[in-house]
């Protein structure tokens, strides 16, 4: 681990300890059950604070945990992408800025375990070191070195907000963003397929879905929770049948309900136990929002969401009434 990173964790622990008196608790990351997993922890005491870490294994978006904690004063450790979820929640008035103490950490990217899994047996890994552009995995048969870019999450490879956009304590050096503009190369590739091929692709993907709703539960912006339309009997949008159609309609609903809200934190796809690339749906919606309304969710807490307003004459929408 680089010296800067170590310093940063010490700074984080010190900052958290200093704030402990002002908050009910702090949510952060601690070392998980193996070297590739970090686990979210609730910090209430100084001893807890000494467990805090921050590195490339801190993949979770802790903003997801804020539901139901209204009325509490909470400290939260966030990466750049997580801070966008916070901003979006604040914009929707689901979160008060005054109830949060935000520990912002500029981030160099987090690991994608699905990518490591194809290169090595992650159950056998007993150590991992990340330095510079390399990730060294300590395996029983010896050390395996992988280029860092190959095992970073996709969202990190196109990250434009490595630095938290909102923070009370900014800890560590600010990073320079990797990509200037999202190229949507994955979407472009996918859209080269014919509609029928795309349909068949999703059909194949959704046949793996086990309807566990991990995608919904991991989404920081799925704020309906116990009144989610997927569970509701009245209106009865989805039945409990485990058919492809129901599973697929849920994914479409998730994407539609996130229109103008999704910050592409990628938690839905990461948490999917079946590896279904559902973030693609949200990315498509975001690309169109950017094109039509030049809008990006979770960047400006004061911005008006494009679907909550209108212009008498839309710039980019052709008048469909005159179409034919």
């Amino acid at each position: 681990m680089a010296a800067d990173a170590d310093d940063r964790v010490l700074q984080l622990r010190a900052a958290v300890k200093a704030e402990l008196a002002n908050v009910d608790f702090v949510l952060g990351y601690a070392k998980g059950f193996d070297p590739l997993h970090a686990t979210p922890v609730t910090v209430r005491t100084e001893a807890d604070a000494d467990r805090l870490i921050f590195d490339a294994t801190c993949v979770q978006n802790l903003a997801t945990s804020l539901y139901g904690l209204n009325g509490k004063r909470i400290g939260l450790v966030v990466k750049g992408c997580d801070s966008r979820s916070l901003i979006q929640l604040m914009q929707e008035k689901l979160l008060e800025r005054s109830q949060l103490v935000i520990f912002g950490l500029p981030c160099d990217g987090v690991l994608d375990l699905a990518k490591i899994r194809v290169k090595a047996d992650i159950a056998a890994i007993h150590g991992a070191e990340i330095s510079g552009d390399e990730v060294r995995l300590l395996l029983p048969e010896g050390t395996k070195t992988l280029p860092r870019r190959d095992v970073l999450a996709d969202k990190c490879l196109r990250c434009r907000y490595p630095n938290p956009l909102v923070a009370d304590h900014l800890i560590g050096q600010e990073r320079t963003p990797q990509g200037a503009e999202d190229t949507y190369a994955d979407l472009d590739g996918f859209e080269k397929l014919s509609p029928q091929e795309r349909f068949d692709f999703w059909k194949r993907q959704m046949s793996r879905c086990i309807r566990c709703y991990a995608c919904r539960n991991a989404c920081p912006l799925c704020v309906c929770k116990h009144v989610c339309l997927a569970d509701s009997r009245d209106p009865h949008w989805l039945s409990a049948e485990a058919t492809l159609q129901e599973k697929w309609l849920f994914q479409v609903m998730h994407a539609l309900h996130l229109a103008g809200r999704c910050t592409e934190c990628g938690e839905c796809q990461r948490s999917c136990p079946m590896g279904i690339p559902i973030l693609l749906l949200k990315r498509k919606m975001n690309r169109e929002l950017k094109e039509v309304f030049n809008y990006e969710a979770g960047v400006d807490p004061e911005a008006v969401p494009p679907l909550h307003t209108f212009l008498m004459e839309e710039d980019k929408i052709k008048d469909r009434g005159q179409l034919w």
Partner: protein
Amino acid sequence: MQDMGRDYRIIGFLCNWCSYGGADAAGVARFSQPTDLRIIRVPCSGRVDPMFVAKALLSGADGVLVSGCHPRDCHYSEGNFYARRRLEMLRRFLPIIGVDEGRFEYIWVSASEGSRWRDMVTRFTEKIHELGPMPRMTEPARTMCALEGMLGQSLAQPDMGGTEGDLSQARIQTVLSGEPKLPDWSRPAQGQVEPRADAMLSASDIARLGDENGANGKEGGHGR
């Protein structure tokens, strides 16, 4: 226009104040119109949740048409302005889920525009007939039976699976070990695509295996 002898299912969401009146005017004027459209009257085009459209399309509609008052003409002043933004986003979103963009359209028709309504409906219906039936997100019923057939004769449905000839032990091993693997779709396809470790055996892969064994598991279109 092909396939005109057959009725397709087209759902129309019409606002109470303009388009429903327009459709009524077309009927009063005794214009002849295609019979594929089923009309649902809504208070305002602003009432149309994009989920209405998505649910209709995924539940068997071949096309969905939303029609409201012309912009600036809304009975509730601004309902159709919100609708325009929402429906435009939906229209642009649909291609990614494999629904042809032509299957959904939103238009503006006022209560006096009976002939315009007739033209719109006729053209939209023609377009849907050109596109053909909407593909269905349904598993072939025999998929699971085919799997059972591979692993042993299905007791529940002895006439399905099991009759497709013997699957070799090697074949069963291939199926159980997760082959054939799915490519990593999150990356643009270029040359050799690395298999994704978490890609698992999908039902349609199993179905395909069944098909290779001489069963006609062809599906597509509506079972009508």
